[in-house]
Protein backbone atom coordinates (compact mmCIF):
# COMPACT_ATOMS: atom_id res chain seq x y z
CA UNK A 1 0.00 0.00 0.00
CA UNK A 2 1.60 3.21 -1.10
CA UNK A 3 -0.20 6.20 0.28
CA UNK A 4 0.96 9.56 -0.88
CA UNK A 5 0.12 12.83 0.65
CA UNK A 6 0.27 16.27 -0.81
CA UNK A 7 -0.91 19.77 -0.01
CA UNK A 8 -3.06 21.72 -2.34
CA UNK A 9 -4.55 25.14 -1.99
CA UNK A 10 -6.22 25.38 -5.36
CA UNK A 11 -9.91 25.24 -5.95
CA UNK A 12 -11.88 25.56 -9.14
CA UNK A 13 -13.62 28.70 -7.97
CA UNK A 14 -10.25 30.17 -7.19
CA UNK A 15 -8.91 29.38 -10.62
CA UNK A 16 -11.92 31.00 -12.21
CA UNK A 17 -11.74 33.98 -9.93
CA UNK A 18 -8.03 34.26 -10.58
CA UNK A 19 -8.63 34.44 -14.31
CA UNK A 20 -11.48 36.87 -13.72
CA UNK A 21 -9.25 39.01 -11.54
CA UNK A 22 -6.58 39.23 -14.22
CA UNK A 23 -9.17 40.07 -16.85
CA UNK A 24 -10.69 42.67 -14.56
CA UNK A 25 -7.30 44.17 -13.94
CA UNK A 26 -6.74 44.37 -17.70
CA UNK A 27 -10.06 46.13 -18.21
CA UNK A 28 -9.32 48.45 -15.33
CA UNK A 29 -6.00 49.45 -16.89
CA UNK A 30 -7.50 50.43 -20.23
CA UNK A 31 -10.65 51.89 -18.70
CA UNK A 32 -9.55 55.55 -18.83
CA UNK A 33 -9.82 55.35 -22.60
CA UNK A 34 -13.59 55.06 -22.35
CA UNK A 35 -14.67 56.15 -18.92
CA UNK A 36 -15.85 59.57 -17.92
CA UNK A 37 -13.77 61.58 -15.57
CA UNK A 38 -16.21 61.28 -12.73
CA UNK A 39 -16.17 57.49 -13.06
CA UNK A 40 -12.38 57.54 -12.89
CA UNK A 41 -12.57 59.65 -9.76
CA UNK A 42 -15.12 57.32 -8.23
CA UNK A 43 -12.93 54.34 -8.98
CA UNK A 44 -9.96 56.13 -7.51
CA UNK A 45 -11.95 56.62 -4.34
CA UNK A 46 -13.02 52.98 -4.29
CA UNK A 47 -9.51 51.70 -4.86
CA UNK A 48 -7.89 53.81 -2.19
CA UNK A 49 -10.57 53.00 0.36
CA UNK A 50 -10.21 49.35 -0.58
CA UNK A 51 -6.49 49.52 0.07
CA UNK A 52 -7.03 51.07 3.47
CA UNK A 53 -9.74 48.56 4.26
CA UNK A 54 -7.54 45.61 3.34
CA UNK A 55 -4.78 46.95 5.53
CA UNK A 56 -7.06 47.53 8.47
CA UNK A 57 -8.48 44.08 7.97
CA UNK A 58 -4.97 42.70 8.10
CA UNK A 59 -4.50 44.51 11.40
CA UNK A 60 -7.78 43.85 13.13
CA UNK A 61 -9.15 40.86 11.29
CA UNK A 62 -6.02 38.79 11.26
CA UNK A 63 -3.92 40.13 14.07
CA UNK A 64 -6.44 41.39 16.60
CA UNK A 65 -4.87 44.85 16.53
CA UNK A 66 -7.99 46.98 16.65
CA UNK A 67 -6.47 50.31 15.77
CA UNK A 68 -8.51 53.49 15.73
CA UNK A 69 -5.45 55.47 14.75
CA UNK A 70 -4.70 54.52 11.16
CA UNK A 71 -5.34 58.12 10.16
CA UNK A 72 -1.97 58.86 11.75
CA UNK A 73 -0.25 57.00 8.92
CA UNK A 74 -2.58 58.19 6.20
CA UNK A 75 -2.11 61.78 7.26
CA UNK A 76 1.58 61.55 7.94
CA UNK A 77 2.22 59.85 4.62
CA UNK A 78 0.22 62.54 2.87
CA UNK A 79 2.04 65.33 4.65
CA UNK A 80 5.41 63.84 3.87
CA UNK A 81 4.44 63.80 0.21
CA UNK A 82 3.63 67.49 0.35
CA UNK A 83 6.74 68.19 2.38
CA UNK A 84 8.94 66.29 -0.02
CA UNK A 85 7.52 67.93 -3.12
CA UNK A 86 7.23 71.46 -1.77
CA UNK A 87 10.34 71.69 0.34
CA UNK A 88 12.74 69.28 -1.34
CA UNK A 89 11.38 69.41 -4.87
CA UNK A 90 10.90 65.67 -5.17
CA UNK A 91 8.67 64.52 -8.00
CA UNK A 92 5.26 63.80 -6.47
CA UNK A 93 5.08 60.32 -7.93
CA UNK A 94 8.46 59.43 -6.48
CA UNK A 95 7.47 61.04 -3.22
CA UNK A 96 4.72 58.46 -2.84
CA UNK A 97 7.35 55.96 -1.87
CA UNK A 98 8.66 58.40 0.72
CA UNK A 99 5.12 58.64 2.09
CA UNK A 100 5.22 54.95 2.80
CA UNK A 101 8.70 55.05 4.25
CA UNK A 102 7.94 57.93 6.57
CA UNK A 103 4.71 56.33 7.72
CA UNK A 104 6.73 53.22 8.45
CA UNK A 105 9.25 55.23 10.42
CA UNK A 106 6.43 56.79 12.41
CA UNK A 107 5.02 53.35 13.06
CA UNK A 108 8.14 52.16 14.83
CA UNK A 109 7.96 54.44 17.88
CA UNK A 110 4.18 54.19 17.78
CA UNK A 111 4.37 50.42 17.99
CA UNK A 112 6.82 50.57 20.88
CA UNK A 113 4.25 52.57 22.75
CA UNK A 114 0.94 51.00 21.77
CA UNK A 115 2.15 47.42 22.00
CA UNK A 116 2.44 47.95 25.71
CA UNK A 117 -1.34 48.29 25.72
CA UNK A 118 -4.00 45.79 24.84
CA UNK A 119 -7.65 45.66 23.89
CA UNK A 120 -9.50 48.91 24.43
CA UNK A 121 -6.40 50.63 25.72
CA UNK A 122 -4.66 49.78 22.49
CA UNK A 123 -7.48 51.29 20.48
CA UNK A 124 -7.53 54.51 22.47
CA UNK A 125 -3.73 54.64 22.52
CA UNK A 126 -3.53 54.54 18.74
CA UNK A 127 -6.12 57.26 18.52
CA UNK A 128 -4.27 59.54 20.90
CA UNK A 129 -1.04 58.96 19.01
CA UNK A 130 -2.82 59.98 15.83
CA UNK A 131 -4.07 63.14 17.53
CA UNK A 132 -0.56 63.94 18.69
CA UNK A 133 0.73 63.54 15.15
CA UNK A 134 -2.09 65.70 13.83
CA UNK A 135 -1.46 68.48 16.32
CA UNK A 136 2.28 68.31 15.73
CA UNK A 137 1.91 68.46 11.98
CA UNK A 138 -0.44 71.42 12.45
CA UNK A 139 2.56 73.30 13.85
CA UNK A 140 4.61 72.71 10.72
CA UNK A 141 4.31 76.16 9.19
CA UNK A 142 6.31 75.37 6.06
CA UNK A 143 3.40 73.26 4.85
CA UNK A 144 0.78 75.68 6.02
CA UNK A 145 0.36 74.80 9.70
CA UNK A 146 -3.23 74.44 10.76
CA UNK A 147 -4.41 75.87 7.46
CA UNK A 148 -2.89 73.26 5.27
CA UNK A 149 -1.49 73.87 1.86
CA UNK A 150 -1.87 73.08 -1.81
CA UNK A 151 0.37 71.18 -4.12
CA UNK A 152 2.23 73.90 -6.03
CA UNK A 153 1.61 74.10 -9.71
CA UNK A 154 5.24 73.41 -10.60
CA UNK A 155 5.18 70.18 -8.69
CA UNK A 156 1.90 69.19 -10.22
CA UNK A 157 3.05 70.00 -13.70
CA UNK A 158 6.13 67.91 -13.53
CA UNK A 159 4.34 64.77 -12.37
CA UNK A 160 5.69 61.86 -14.36
CA UNK A 161 3.54 60.63 -17.16
CA UNK A 162 0.93 63.36 -17.16
CA UNK A 163 1.99 64.81 -20.49
CA UNK A 164 2.06 61.38 -22.00
CA UNK A 165 -1.45 60.66 -20.73
CA UNK A 166 -2.65 64.03 -21.98
CA UNK A 167 -1.41 63.14 -25.44
CA UNK A 168 -2.56 59.54 -25.30
CA UNK A 169 -6.15 60.19 -24.30
CA UNK A 170 -6.36 63.75 -25.58
CA UNK A 171 -7.51 65.19 -22.26
CA UNK A 172 -6.74 68.26 -20.19
CA UNK A 173 -3.96 68.18 -17.65
CA UNK A 174 -6.33 67.92 -14.71
CA UNK A 175 -8.04 64.89 -16.22
CA UNK A 176 -4.66 63.37 -17.06
CA UNK A 177 -3.60 63.74 -13.45
CA UNK A 178 -6.75 61.95 -12.38
CA UNK A 179 -5.95 59.10 -14.73
CA UNK A 180 -2.42 58.85 -13.42
CA UNK A 181 -3.69 58.83 -9.85
CA UNK A 182 -6.21 56.18 -10.79
CA UNK A 183 -3.55 53.93 -12.27
CA UNK A 184 -1.40 54.37 -9.22
CA UNK A 185 -4.36 53.54 -6.98
CA UNK A 186 -5.07 50.50 -9.09
CA UNK A 187 -1.50 49.35 -8.75
CA UNK A 188 -1.55 49.99 -5.02
CA UNK A 189 -4.80 48.13 -4.46
CA UNK A 190 -3.68 45.22 -6.61
CA UNK A 191 -0.34 45.08 -4.84
CA UNK A 192 -2.01 45.24 -1.44
CA UNK A 193 -4.50 42.50 -2.14
CA UNK A 194 -1.95 40.39 -4.00
CA UNK A 195 0.63 40.95 -1.31
CA UNK A 196 -1.70 40.05 1.53
CA UNK A 197 -2.92 37.03 -0.38
CA UNK A 198 0.60 35.87 -1.02
CA UNK A 199 1.51 36.43 2.60
CA UNK A 200 -1.50 34.49 3.86
CA UNK A 201 -0.42 31.55 1.75
CA UNK A 202 3.04 31.47 3.21
CA UNK A 203 4.02 29.69 6.37
CA UNK A 204 3.85 33.00 8.23
CA UNK A 205 0.39 33.65 6.88
CA UNK A 206 -0.83 30.39 8.32
CA UNK A 207 0.70 31.41 11.61
CA UNK A 208 -1.16 34.70 11.40
CA UNK A 209 -4.43 32.84 10.93
CA UNK A 210 -3.56 30.67 13.90
CA UNK A 211 -2.85 33.74 16.00
CA UNK A 212 -6.16 35.21 14.98
CA UNK A 213 -7.94 32.12 16.28
CA UNK A 214 -6.04 31.52 19.48
CA UNK A 215 -3.04 33.49 20.66
CA UNK A 216 -2.05 31.29 23.60
CA UNK A 217 -2.17 28.12 21.57
CA UNK A 218 -0.27 29.71 18.70
CA UNK A 219 2.53 30.75 21.01
CA UNK A 220 2.67 27.23 22.36
CA UNK A 221 3.29 25.75 18.93
CA UNK A 222 6.16 28.09 18.26
CA UNK A 223 4.51 31.02 16.51
CA UNK A 224 6.38 34.24 17.15
CA UNK A 225 3.38 36.38 18.04
CA UNK A 226 5.36 39.49 18.85
CA UNK A 227 7.19 39.50 15.57
CA UNK A 228 4.01 38.91 13.60
CA UNK A 229 2.43 41.89 15.32
CA UNK A 230 5.35 44.07 14.39
CA UNK A 231 5.37 42.91 10.79
CA UNK A 232 1.66 43.49 10.35
CA UNK A 233 1.65 46.86 12.07
CA UNK A 234 4.56 48.15 10.02
CA UNK A 235 3.21 46.81 6.76
CA UNK A 236 -0.17 48.38 7.43
CA UNK A 237 1.48 51.70 8.24
CA UNK A 238 3.59 51.58 5.08
CA UNK A 239 0.56 50.87 2.92
CA UNK A 240 -1.58 53.48 4.66
CA UNK A 241 1.19 56.03 4.16
CA UNK A 242 1.32 55.42 0.43
CA UNK A 243 -2.46 55.44 0.19
CA UNK A 244 -2.55 58.71 2.12
CA UNK A 245 0.06 60.26 -0.13
CA UNK A 246 -1.84 59.17 -3.20
CA UNK A 247 -5.22 60.38 -1.95
CA UNK A 248 -3.90 63.84 -1.22
CA UNK A 249 -1.80 63.91 -4.35
CA UNK A 250 -5.01 63.49 -6.30
CA UNK A 251 -6.77 65.96 -4.02
CA UNK A 252 -4.07 68.58 -4.53
CA UNK A 253 -4.81 70.15 -1.19
CA UNK A 254 -4.11 69.09 2.35
CA UNK A 255 -4.95 70.23 5.84
CA UNK A 256 -4.40 68.55 9.18
CA UNK A 257 -8.12 68.13 9.68
CA UNK A 258 -8.65 66.31 6.41
CA UNK A 259 -5.42 64.33 6.47
CA UNK A 260 -5.96 63.07 10.01
CA UNK A 261 -9.75 62.69 9.89
CA UNK A 262 -10.67 59.77 12.13
CA UNK A 263 -14.08 59.43 10.52
CA UNK A 264 -12.84 59.26 6.97
CA UNK A 265 -9.70 57.19 7.32
CA UNK A 266 -10.66 54.96 10.18
CA UNK A 267 -14.39 54.89 10.91
CA UNK A 268 -15.43 54.45 7.29
CA UNK A 269 -12.68 51.95 6.73
CA UNK A 270 -13.87 49.96 9.72
CA UNK A 271 -17.43 50.06 8.41
CA UNK A 272 -16.28 48.81 5.05
CA UNK A 273 -14.45 45.90 6.59
CA UNK A 274 -17.23 44.96 8.97
CA UNK A 275 -20.03 45.30 6.48
CA UNK A 276 -18.12 43.19 3.98
CA UNK A 277 -16.79 40.66 6.44
CA UNK A 278 -13.84 40.91 8.76
CA UNK A 279 -11.01 38.42 8.53
CA UNK A 280 -11.41 37.65 4.84
CA UNK A 281 -9.86 39.15 1.73
CA UNK A 282 -13.21 39.23 -0.05
CA UNK A 283 -14.95 41.12 2.76
CA UNK A 284 -13.38 44.53 2.21
CA UNK A 285 -14.04 44.24 -1.53
CA UNK A 286 -17.73 43.61 -0.93
CA UNK A 287 -17.74 46.26 1.77
CA UNK A 288 -16.22 48.99 -0.34
CA UNK A 289 -18.75 48.35 -3.10
CA UNK A 290 -21.67 48.53 -0.68
CA UNK A 291 -20.17 51.64 0.85
CA UNK A 292 -19.80 53.28 -2.53
CA UNK A 293 -23.24 52.41 -3.82
CA UNK A 294 -24.82 53.62 -0.63
CA UNK A 295 -22.96 56.84 -1.06
CA UNK A 296 -24.16 57.20 -4.63
CA UNK A 297 -27.70 56.31 -3.69
CA UNK A 298 -27.91 58.71 -0.81
CA UNK A 299 -25.56 61.38 -2.12
CA UNK A 300 -28.35 63.91 -2.32
CA UNK A 301 -29.46 63.43 1.23
CA UNK A 302 -26.31 64.74 2.90
CA UNK A 303 -25.99 63.58 6.44
CA UNK A 304 -28.67 60.93 5.97
CA UNK A 305 -26.11 58.90 4.08
CA UNK A 306 -23.87 58.74 7.11
CA UNK A 307 -26.77 57.96 9.38
CA UNK A 308 -27.70 55.01 7.18
CA UNK A 309 -24.09 53.89 7.02
CA UNK A 310 -23.77 54.02 10.79
CA UNK A 311 -27.00 52.09 11.29
CA UNK A 312 -25.99 49.51 8.72
CA UNK A 313 -22.68 49.01 10.49
CA UNK A 314 -24.48 48.53 13.81
CA UNK A 315 -27.05 46.14 12.41
CA UNK A 316 -24.45 44.01 10.63
CA UNK A 317 -22.23 43.83 13.69
CA UNK A 318 -25.17 42.76 15.82
CA UNK A 319 -26.85 40.31 13.50
CA UNK A 320 -24.22 39.17 11.02
CA UNK A 321 -20.89 39.72 12.70
CA UNK A 322 -19.10 37.90 9.91
CA UNK A 323 -20.34 40.49 7.42
CA UNK A 324 -22.02 40.09 4.07
CA UNK A 325 -19.26 37.96 2.62
CA UNK A 326 -19.09 35.78 5.70
CA UNK A 327 -22.83 35.27 5.46
CA UNK A 328 -22.57 34.33 1.80
CA UNK A 329 -19.49 32.16 2.16
CA UNK A 330 -20.98 30.18 5.02
CA UNK A 331 -23.92 29.26 2.86
CA UNK A 332 -22.03 28.49 -0.32
CA UNK A 333 -18.58 27.54 0.89
CA UNK A 334 -17.11 29.68 -1.85
CA UNK A 335 -13.78 31.41 -1.38
CA UNK A 336 -12.40 33.62 -4.10
CA UNK A 337 -9.04 33.79 -2.43
CA UNK A 338 -8.64 30.38 -0.87
CA UNK A 339 -5.87 30.19 1.63
CA UNK A 340 -6.94 26.86 2.97
CA UNK A 341 -4.45 24.07 2.47
CA UNK A 342 -6.06 20.74 1.83
CA UNK A 343 -4.43 17.46 2.54
CA UNK A 344 -4.79 15.29 -0.56
CA UNK A 345 -4.54 11.59 -0.01
CA UNK A 346 -3.90 9.19 -2.85
CA UNK A 347 -3.91 5.54 -2.17
Amino acid at each position, binding site marked *: MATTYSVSARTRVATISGIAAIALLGVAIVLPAFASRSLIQDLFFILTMLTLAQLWNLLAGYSGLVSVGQQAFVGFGAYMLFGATILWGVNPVAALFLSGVFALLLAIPTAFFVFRLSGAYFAIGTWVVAEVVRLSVAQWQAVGGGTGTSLPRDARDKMWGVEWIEALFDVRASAARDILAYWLALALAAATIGGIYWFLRTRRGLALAALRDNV*EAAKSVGVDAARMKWIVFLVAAFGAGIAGGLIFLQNGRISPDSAFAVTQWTAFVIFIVVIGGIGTLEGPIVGVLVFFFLQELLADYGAVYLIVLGLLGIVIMLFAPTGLWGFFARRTGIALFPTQRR*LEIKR
Partner: protein
Amino acid sequence: MAPSTSSSSTTRPRPTSRPRASWSRWPDRKRRPGHDAGPPSSSEEPGRSAILSLHDVSKSFGALKVADAISFDLPEGQALGIIGPNGAGKSTLFNLITGNLAPDAGRIEYLGRDVTRTPPMQRCLAGMGRSFQIPQPFNRLTVFENLLVAATHGQDRTESDVVDDVARILERTELIEVANRPAGGLTLLQRKRLELARAMATQPRLLLLDEIAGGLTDAECTALIETIRALHAGGVTIIWIEHVLHALTAVVERLLVLDFGRVIGLGDPAEIMDSREVKEIYLGIEV
Protein backbone atom coordinates in the same frame (compact mmCIF):
# COMPACT_ATOMS: atom_id res chain seq x y z
CA MET B 1 -2.96 32.00 -8.80
CA ALA B 2 0.18 30.71 -7.25
CA PRO B 3 0.94 27.06 -7.78
CA SER B 4 0.21 24.89 -4.83
CA THR B 5 2.85 23.30 -2.76
CA SER B 6 3.10 19.58 -2.97
CA SER B 7 5.23 17.13 -1.18
CA SER B 8 7.38 14.27 -2.18
CA SER B 9 5.41 11.09 -2.10
CA THR B 10 7.68 8.72 -0.29
CA THR B 11 6.41 6.74 2.62
CA ARG B 12 9.51 5.82 4.49
CA PRO B 13 8.68 4.34 7.83
CA ARG B 14 9.92 6.97 10.18
CA PRO B 15 9.20 7.56 13.80
CA THR B 16 6.76 10.43 14.10
CA SER B 17 9.18 12.08 16.35
CA ARG B 18 12.78 11.98 15.34
CA PRO B 19 15.81 13.46 16.96
CA ARG B 20 15.80 17.16 16.54
CA ALA B 21 17.41 18.49 13.44
CA SER B 22 18.06 22.00 14.52
CA TRP B 23 17.53 24.29 17.37
CA SER B 24 18.82 27.42 15.89
CA ARG B 25 18.39 29.89 18.69
CA TRP B 26 20.07 27.84 21.31
CA PRO B 27 23.73 27.06 21.17
CA ASP B 28 23.84 23.85 23.23
CA ARG B 29 21.21 22.19 21.22
CA LYS B 30 22.69 18.76 20.76
CA ARG B 31 21.25 15.99 22.73
CA ARG B 32 24.19 14.88 24.76
CA PRO B 33 23.90 12.07 27.22
CA GLY B 34 25.27 13.18 30.52
CA HIS B 35 24.86 16.78 29.52
CA ASP B 36 25.29 18.95 32.54
CA ALA B 37 21.98 20.37 33.65
CA GLY B 38 23.06 22.89 36.20
CA PRO B 39 23.92 21.75 39.67
CA PRO B 40 23.58 17.97 39.85
CA SER B 41 20.51 17.90 42.01
CA SER B 42 18.56 15.10 43.60
CA SER B 43 18.28 13.09 40.44
CA GLU B 44 17.12 9.68 41.48
CA GLU B 45 18.35 8.00 38.38
CA PRO B 46 21.97 8.80 37.90
CA GLY B 47 23.13 8.59 34.31
CA ARG B 48 20.15 10.38 32.91
CA SER B 49 20.51 14.14 32.95
CA ALA B 50 17.56 16.35 33.84
CA ILE B 51 15.78 17.81 30.84
CA LEU B 52 13.67 19.95 33.14
CA SER B 53 14.20 21.11 36.67
CA LEU B 54 12.05 23.35 38.79
CA HIS B 55 13.47 25.18 41.77
CA ASP B 56 11.00 26.55 44.31
CA VAL B 57 8.56 27.71 41.69
CA SER B 58 5.62 29.62 43.17
CA LYS B 59 2.58 31.29 41.72
CA SER B 60 -0.48 32.94 43.24
CA PHE B 61 -3.68 34.28 41.80
CA GLY B 62 -4.51 37.00 44.26
CA ALA B 63 -4.72 35.30 47.64
CA LEU B 64 -4.87 31.86 46.09
CA LYS B 65 -1.55 30.06 46.06
CA VAL B 66 -1.63 27.59 43.17
CA ALA B 67 2.04 26.70 43.07
CA ASP B 68 3.88 26.61 46.35
CA ALA B 69 7.65 26.25 46.10
CA ILE B 70 7.52 23.37 43.66
CA SER B 71 10.85 21.69 42.97
CA PHE B 72 11.63 18.58 41.03
CA ASP B 73 13.97 17.25 38.35
CA LEU B 74 12.82 15.36 35.34
CA PRO B 75 15.42 13.09 33.74
CA GLU B 76 15.48 13.09 29.96
CA GLY B 77 13.39 10.30 28.51
CA GLN B 78 11.25 9.72 31.56
CA ALA B 79 7.46 9.68 31.64
CA LEU B 80 6.08 11.51 34.64
CA GLY B 81 2.45 11.44 35.70
CA ILE B 82 0.84 14.22 37.68
CA ILE B 83 -2.29 13.69 39.70
CA GLY B 84 -4.11 15.78 42.25
CA PRO B 85 -7.59 16.98 43.08
CA ASN B 86 -9.40 19.56 41.02
CA GLY B 87 -7.87 22.95 41.40
CA ALA B 88 -4.66 21.57 42.86
CA GLY B 89 -2.66 23.60 40.36
CA LYS B 90 -1.75 20.93 37.83
CA SER B 91 -2.66 22.88 34.74
CA THR B 92 -1.12 25.97 36.26
CA LEU B 93 2.11 24.05 36.68
CA PHE B 94 2.03 23.26 32.95
CA ASN B 95 1.49 26.89 32.14
CA LEU B 96 4.48 27.79 34.26
CA ILE B 97 6.65 25.19 32.58
CA THR B 98 5.67 26.27 29.08
CA GLY B 99 5.81 29.97 29.84
CA ASN B 100 2.13 30.73 29.30
CA LEU B 101 2.27 32.02 32.87
CA ALA B 102 5.22 33.67 34.59
CA PRO B 103 6.06 32.40 38.08
CA ASP B 104 6.07 34.82 41.00
CA ALA B 105 9.23 33.23 42.34
CA GLY B 106 11.56 30.39 41.60
CA ARG B 107 13.54 29.20 38.63
CA ILE B 108 12.82 26.83 35.79
CA GLU B 109 15.63 25.14 33.93
CA TYR B 110 15.19 23.37 30.67
CA LEU B 111 18.08 21.54 29.05
CA GLY B 112 20.36 23.17 31.54
CA ARG B 113 19.35 26.70 30.71
CA ASP B 114 17.36 29.08 32.82
CA VAL B 115 14.12 29.56 30.91
CA THR B 116 12.14 31.27 33.66
CA ARG B 117 11.62 34.37 31.54
CA THR B 118 11.73 32.77 28.11
CA PRO B 119 8.57 33.28 26.05
CA PRO B 120 6.48 30.17 25.27
CA MET B 121 7.25 30.35 21.60
CA GLN B 122 10.97 29.94 22.19
CA ARG B 123 10.41 27.13 24.62
CA CYS B 124 8.42 25.42 21.92
CA LEU B 125 11.23 25.88 19.45
CA ALA B 126 13.49 24.37 22.03
CA GLY B 127 11.36 21.26 22.01
CA MET B 128 8.54 21.72 24.49
CA GLY B 129 5.20 20.61 23.15
CA ARG B 130 1.97 20.76 25.06
CA SER B 131 -1.72 20.06 24.94
CA PHE B 132 -4.32 22.17 26.70
CA GLN B 133 -6.82 20.73 29.14
CA ILE B 134 -9.58 22.80 27.58
CA PRO B 135 -8.85 22.24 23.90
CA GLN B 136 -7.64 25.35 22.16
CA PRO B 137 -7.90 24.58 18.46
CA PHE B 138 -7.42 27.18 15.77
CA ASN B 139 -11.11 27.13 15.00
CA ARG B 140 -11.13 28.59 11.54
CA LEU B 141 -8.23 26.49 10.31
CA THR B 142 -8.70 22.92 9.23
CA VAL B 143 -7.42 20.10 11.35
CA PHE B 144 -4.62 19.59 8.86
CA GLU B 145 -3.70 23.26 9.01
CA ASN B 146 -3.74 23.15 12.79
CA LEU B 147 -0.98 20.60 12.60
CA LEU B 148 0.74 22.37 9.75
CA VAL B 149 1.22 25.50 11.86
CA ALA B 150 2.64 23.46 14.65
CA ALA B 151 4.93 21.48 12.39
CA THR B 152 6.29 24.43 10.45
CA HIS B 153 6.69 26.81 13.36
CA GLY B 154 7.44 24.50 16.22
CA GLN B 155 10.31 23.49 13.99
CA ASP B 156 11.73 25.75 11.37
CA ARG B 157 10.57 23.65 8.42
CA THR B 158 8.77 24.27 5.18
CA GLU B 159 5.28 23.05 4.48
CA SER B 160 6.29 20.46 1.92
CA ASP B 161 8.82 18.98 4.34
CA VAL B 162 6.28 18.27 6.98
CA VAL B 163 3.33 16.93 5.02
CA ASP B 164 4.19 13.30 5.52
CA ASP B 165 4.86 13.69 9.20
CA VAL B 166 1.66 15.56 9.70
CA ALA B 167 -0.37 13.04 7.77
CA ARG B 168 1.09 10.22 9.81
CA ILE B 169 0.21 11.93 13.05
CA LEU B 170 -3.30 12.47 11.76
CA GLU B 171 -3.65 8.80 10.99
CA ARG B 172 -2.29 7.83 14.33
CA THR B 173 -4.71 10.03 16.19
CA GLU B 174 -7.58 8.95 13.94
CA LEU B 175 -8.13 12.44 12.66
CA ILE B 176 -7.28 11.75 9.05
CA GLU B 177 -10.96 11.49 8.16
CA VAL B 178 -11.60 15.04 9.29
CA ALA B 179 -8.27 16.45 8.14
CA ASN B 180 -9.84 19.02 5.85
CA ARG B 181 -12.62 20.12 8.16
CA PRO B 182 -12.45 23.31 10.19
CA ALA B 183 -11.34 22.50 13.71
CA GLY B 184 -14.15 24.61 15.13
CA GLY B 185 -16.65 21.95 14.10
CA LEU B 186 -15.04 19.02 15.88
CA THR B 187 -16.57 17.15 18.76
CA LEU B 188 -14.95 17.43 22.13
CA LEU B 189 -13.30 14.06 21.76
CA GLN B 190 -11.85 15.00 18.42
CA ARG B 191 -10.65 18.26 19.85
CA LYS B 192 -8.83 16.43 22.55
CA ARG B 193 -7.18 14.25 19.97
CA LEU B 194 -6.30 17.33 18.02
CA GLU B 195 -4.61 18.71 21.09
CA LEU B 196 -2.41 15.64 21.25
CA ALA B 197 -1.82 15.59 17.51
CA ARG B 198 -0.84 19.22 17.37
CA ALA B 199 1.53 18.83 20.27
CA MET B 200 3.10 15.85 18.50
CA ALA B 201 3.47 17.85 15.31
CA THR B 202 5.88 20.25 16.97
CA GLN B 203 8.22 17.25 17.29
CA PRO B 204 8.66 17.79 20.96
CA ARG B 205 11.51 16.58 23.03
CA LEU B 206 9.44 17.19 26.14
CA LEU B 207 5.73 16.60 25.73
CA LEU B 208 3.22 17.94 28.26
CA LEU B 209 -0.23 16.37 28.15
CA ASP B 210 -3.16 17.72 30.16
CA GLU B 211 -6.11 15.35 30.67
CA ILE B 212 -6.35 13.84 27.24
CA ALA B 213 -7.89 10.51 28.22
CA GLY B 214 -11.09 11.72 29.83
CA GLY B 215 -14.21 10.51 28.10
CA LEU B 216 -12.58 7.84 25.92
CA THR B 217 -14.02 4.37 25.54
CA ASP B 218 -11.86 1.49 26.65
CA ALA B 219 -10.71 0.74 23.13
CA GLU B 220 -9.89 4.34 22.45
CA CYS B 221 -8.09 4.55 25.72
CA THR B 222 -5.96 1.56 24.83
CA ALA B 223 -5.11 3.11 21.48
CA LEU B 224 -4.16 6.33 23.20
CA ILE B 225 -1.92 4.49 25.61
CA GLU B 226 -0.24 2.81 22.64
CA THR B 227 0.37 6.14 20.94
CA ILE B 228 1.92 7.66 23.99
CA ARG B 229 4.01 4.62 24.69
CA ALA B 230 5.35 4.74 21.17
CA LEU B 231 6.27 8.38 21.58
CA HIS B 232 7.96 7.59 24.80
CA ALA B 233 9.82 4.72 23.25
CA GLY B 234 11.01 7.13 20.56
CA GLY B 235 12.85 9.07 23.24
CA VAL B 236 10.37 11.77 24.06
CA THR B 237 10.16 12.89 27.68
CA ILE B 238 6.58 13.08 28.84
CA ILE B 239 4.64 14.77 31.61
CA TRP B 240 1.04 13.69 31.74
CA ILE B 241 -1.74 15.08 33.90
CA GLU B 242 -4.57 12.61 34.06
CA HIS B 243 -7.55 11.67 36.18
CA VAL B 244 -7.98 8.37 34.32
CA LEU B 245 -5.52 6.59 36.53
CA HIS B 246 -5.29 3.24 34.83
CA ALA B 247 -4.26 4.93 31.62
CA LEU B 248 -1.72 6.97 33.41
CA THR B 249 -0.17 4.15 35.37
CA ALA B 250 0.13 2.12 32.21
CA VAL B 251 2.63 4.60 30.84
CA VAL B 252 4.39 6.62 33.48
CA GLU B 253 7.47 5.65 35.38
CA ARG B 254 7.08 8.21 38.09
CA LEU B 255 4.11 9.92 39.66
CA LEU B 256 3.84 13.36 41.20
CA VAL B 257 0.94 14.27 43.45
CA LEU B 258 -0.10 17.87 43.79
CA ASP B 259 -2.43 19.29 46.37
CA PHE B 260 -2.94 22.97 47.12
CA GLY B 261 -0.04 23.77 44.83
CA ARG B 262 2.33 21.64 46.85
CA VAL B 263 4.11 18.45 45.90
CA ILE B 264 2.87 15.91 48.41
CA GLY B 265 4.28 12.85 46.77
CA LEU B 266 6.79 11.98 44.09
CA GLY B 267 8.02 8.53 43.23
CA ASP B 268 7.12 5.11 41.98
CA PRO B 269 3.51 5.06 40.77
CA ALA B 270 2.48 1.93 42.62
CA GLU B 271 3.88 3.15 45.90
CA ILE B 272 2.36 6.55 45.51
CA MET B 273 -1.04 5.18 44.65
CA ASP B 274 -0.91 3.00 47.64
CA SER B 275 -0.06 5.73 50.09
CA ARG B 276 -2.74 6.69 52.54
CA GLU B 277 -2.44 10.38 51.91
CA VAL B 278 -3.09 10.05 48.24
CA LYS B 279 -6.06 7.82 48.74
CA GLU B 280 -7.56 10.25 51.16
CA ILE B 281 -6.88 13.43 49.35
CA TYR B 282 -7.20 12.34 45.84
CA LEU B 283 -9.80 9.63 45.84
CA GLY B 284 -11.59 11.04 48.82
CA ILE B 285 -12.25 7.52 50.01
CA GLU B 286 -11.43 6.95 53.61
CA VAL B 287 -9.17 4.04 54.08
